[in-house]
């Protein structure tokens, strides 16, 4: 390691070096004719989008409470019941609260009690070409990250009673009440990803990824019938 004096000298030297570098590199006017392809702009847009959105917060939040933010545009009247299976009114375990700019979904289990051991579940079905790259699970939640080709991904989360999910309604292109088997859920979509939020009375599940809705449902249905992790 350098001593403080040497380090200071080096930092100042690099500052001078950077000034010379900046002078040698082309200026803004010289770079003006350079164009980037639409393909690249789309890729970068997707990259910037992914680093902005809830998936990052979901995985990396230090707090145990889940606070996910999706940007979406809420069009009044677009919520519609989409039946994949039948909604069972007795399985309504979400407290839904709408506020200006968003909605909060809080899951309450009617069967689990505080202190009951958390039984980890994993989806039995994962689409072809996806591999598990990270297991973020701990004693009270399950978090599995799967990677597909390119920027394709799948995230599966399983959470306890009391967890909440926040949706900021801006730029969501599709949103609906849905069901997985007999259990209640919600589906949200935007330009790049789809998110399925549902519960089985005991746990809250979240599946998000670049999959189609149909694939997402297949994953979801395999959890409900899935085995312990």
């Amino acid at each position, binding site marked *: 390691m*350098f001593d403080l004096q*040497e*380090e200071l*000298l*080096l*930092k*100042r*030297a*690099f*500052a*001078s*070096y*950077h000034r*010379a*570098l*900046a*002078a*040698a*590199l*082309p200026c803004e006017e010289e*770079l*003006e004719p*350079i164009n*980037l*392809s639409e*393909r*690249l702009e789309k*890729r*970068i847009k997707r*990259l*910037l989008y*992914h*680093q*902005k959105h809830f*998936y*990052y*917060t979901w*995985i*990396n*939040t230090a707090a145990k409470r889940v606070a996910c933010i999706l940007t979406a545009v809420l069009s009044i009247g677009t919520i519609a019941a989409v039946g994949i299976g039948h909604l069972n009114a007795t399985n309504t375990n979400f407290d839904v609260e709408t506020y200006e700019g968003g909605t909060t979904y809080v899951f309450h289990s009617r069967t689990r009690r505080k202190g009951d051991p958390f039984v980890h579940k994993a989806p039995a079905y994962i689409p072809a070409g996806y591999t598990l*790259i*990270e297991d973020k699970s701990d004693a009270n939640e399950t978090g599995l*990250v799967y*990677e597909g080709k390119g*920027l394709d*991904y799948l995230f599966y989360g399983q959470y306890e009673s009391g967890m909440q999910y926040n949706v900021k309604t801006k730029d969501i292109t599709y949103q609906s009440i849905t069901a997985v088997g007999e259990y209640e859920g919600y589906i949200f979509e935007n330009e790049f990803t789809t998110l399925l939020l549902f519960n089985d009375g005991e746990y809250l599940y979240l599946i998000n990824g670049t999959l189609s809705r149909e694939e997402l449902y297949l994953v979801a249905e395999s959890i409900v019938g899935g085995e312990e992790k």
Partner: protein
Amino acid sequence: MLFFYLSLVDLPEEKIRVEEIYHCYKKLIKYIAFSKLESEELAEEVVHEVMLAVINNIKKLQAMEMEEIKGFIYLATRNISHDIFRKEKRREAENIDDLQLPMQAVGDPQDSLGEQVILDCIAAMPPIYRDILELTVYYGLSLQECAKLLKISQAAARKRLERARAIVRAKLEEGEEQYV
């Protein structure tokens, strides 16, 4: 891949900063990459890879001015371009610094002799040593982060840093003897 960087960008300010950096430097990155690779497609691949490197190191870059970040952008672009060049051409690449920018590093007139000695030293230093020194001392990256960016092992990064330190120390001692 993208997911390895997931844990790193989780503050709104950082996310906005990444976007600012992209919009400010995307053309410069492509220019530098194209001058090395002479391929539009490969140059754009470099743009994507450099943005991943920015995301990966945004916590260190967040507090810096855009002009200071330019040095990081240049360093990352040069190294990533060199890496792609080696892979594409399947042969040993020429000097990584073959962009041959007409640079003349001149210190601030207020600088002490020691500062000018170090400035001359880093300007003349082989890029593989200068880069590791710049990343660790100026940008504050760890050896692990440097290794990831430069696509070398941590052991190789450590060796390069040790060599870079030795070069600087030797120059400083030489400078002291000369000017005493």
